[in-house]
């Protein structure tokens, strides 16, 4: 009888798959990544390693001693005190208490804080409050303490912002106007990111995270690259982590370039080169999870993209491993069996420098 493996679908549904099906999903996942990204598939030994991690009968798995990597985060401390919208557990704690708990009780390698809206635009208007809190907390933390937010260029379009809404202009055939509006929004976004970065730099900022760059497409990614470059020009010693928002950059504009390279459609091995060129210190890699495919398929795909990006990169790569990213199931409460398998595979096979 073919042995069965307990695993998950990309939406978190628990199911038993035959060993044969797990192996065929691993093969299909790596082939999908290879075909889309024009990168090598995982070799048979790596596919076997991945199978062993997924089929390991224990509920929780971990990397081998000596192979541990660094944890960075996108405001995980906010999960202590925020609500369901932010994946939070609603404990009545202050920011300071949450950060120190994450550092000292959870053993995080780094910690962070961010505005509850987690976008640069709303931070601008409350920057002095943010700078004050950052400074106070940085006096008490021992591990590196980041400030993070998302570029989130969507906030610059009407009705939330001043620029004509590109998503409304495009269906009307107003492509040139849509592009012009995105370019304007990108310039405003860069300005805000640099403003926030410089203000925080003035109170001893230890590291700045541009999280989920490119969520509104290629112009959003460009805005973040330009902000990194500008900040590195004035604050060369400021560590910057720039993370992506998916396995390829959406061509919402389609023609924007950075240092001569078109950004639309870039896969992680090219995304990281653009991030390197801008001067960032760490790249955050994000690969989409398909809810209709299994964890073996999704994880195999994520590991394949990560491995290729790592080979192309000269800076550390931290794989983004939140809900629905890099093989973690897309659900509010990702199961610990899946989370730890994703964690181990990305480190041991994908060779992530951090998570």
């Amino acid at each position, binding site marked *: 009888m073919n042995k069965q493996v307990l695993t998950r679908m990309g939406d978190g549904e628990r199911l038993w798959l035959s060993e044969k099906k797990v192996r065929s999903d691993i093969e299909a996942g790596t082939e999908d990544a290879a075909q889309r990204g024009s990168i090598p598939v995982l070799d048979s030994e790596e596919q076997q390693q991945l199978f062993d991690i997924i089929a390991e009968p224990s509920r*929780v*798995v*971990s*990397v081998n*001693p*000596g192979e*541990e*990597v*660094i*944890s*960075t*985060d996108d405001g*995980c401390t906010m*999960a202590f005190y925020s609500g369901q919208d932010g*994946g939070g557990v609603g404990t009545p704690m202050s920011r300071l208490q949450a950060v120190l708990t994450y*550092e*000292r009780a*959870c*053993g*995080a*390698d*780094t910690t962070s804080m961010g505005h509850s809206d987690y976008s640069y635009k709303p931070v601008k208007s409350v920057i002095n409050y943010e700078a004050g809190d950052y400074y106070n907390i*940085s*006096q*008490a*933390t*021992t*591990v*590196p*303490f980041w400030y993070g937010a998302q570029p989130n260029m969507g906030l610059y379009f009407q009705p939330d912002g001043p620029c004509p809404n590109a998503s409304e202009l495009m269906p009307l055939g107003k492509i040139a106007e849509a592009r012009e509006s995105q370019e304007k929004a990108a310039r405003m976004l860069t300005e805000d990111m640099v403003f926030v970065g410089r203000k925080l*730099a003035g*109170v*001893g*900022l*230890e590291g700045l995270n541009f999280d989920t760059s490119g969520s509104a497409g290629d112009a959003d990614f460009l805005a973040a690259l330009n902000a990194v470059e500008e900040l590195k020009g004035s604050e060369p*010693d*400021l*560590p910057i*982590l720039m993370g992506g928002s998916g396995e390829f950059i959406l061509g919402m504009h389609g023609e924007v370039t950075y240092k001569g390279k078109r950004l639309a459609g870039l896969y992680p091995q090219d995304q990281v080169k653009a991030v390197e060129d801008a001067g960032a*210190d*760490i790249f955050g890699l994000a690969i989409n999870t398909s809810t209709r495919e299994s964890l073996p398929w999704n994880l195999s795909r994520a590991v394949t993209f990560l491995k290729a990006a790592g080979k192309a990169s*000269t*800076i*550390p790569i931290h794989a983004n*491993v*939140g*809900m629905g990213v890099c093989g*973690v199931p897309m659900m509010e409460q*990702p199961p*610990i069996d899946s*989370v*730890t398998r994703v*964690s*181990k595979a*990305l*480190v041991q096979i994908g060779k*992530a*420098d*951090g*998570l």
Partner: protein
Amino acid sequence: MSIAHIMASCMGGIRTAGDLVAWMQMTRKMKIGEAKAYVADKLGVDAFNLTNEEIMRELRKDLGIGTVTSIAGGPKGITAKYKIAELLDIKIRSVDLFKTQLGL
């Protein structure tokens, strides 16, 4: 979920030497192997022991760079980071501000 990742794959922060290795990725763009080797050399330990609580607990206490359990009067926060910057020969921006404020 983040705690599951920390337990499964990460170095353990101030329980071990995770923060020190993280500083090297942030300030020198070092990949994980290079960063661990650098920190291990500065600490005079084998890289394998950077996540060994038995070794790192005493070492952190002796070096005054912060321990996970709270020792009354022991260095933590900005004073521990001050020593970490010196130990690793790196620039920590919050420490630089602190030194400026003290006139150092």
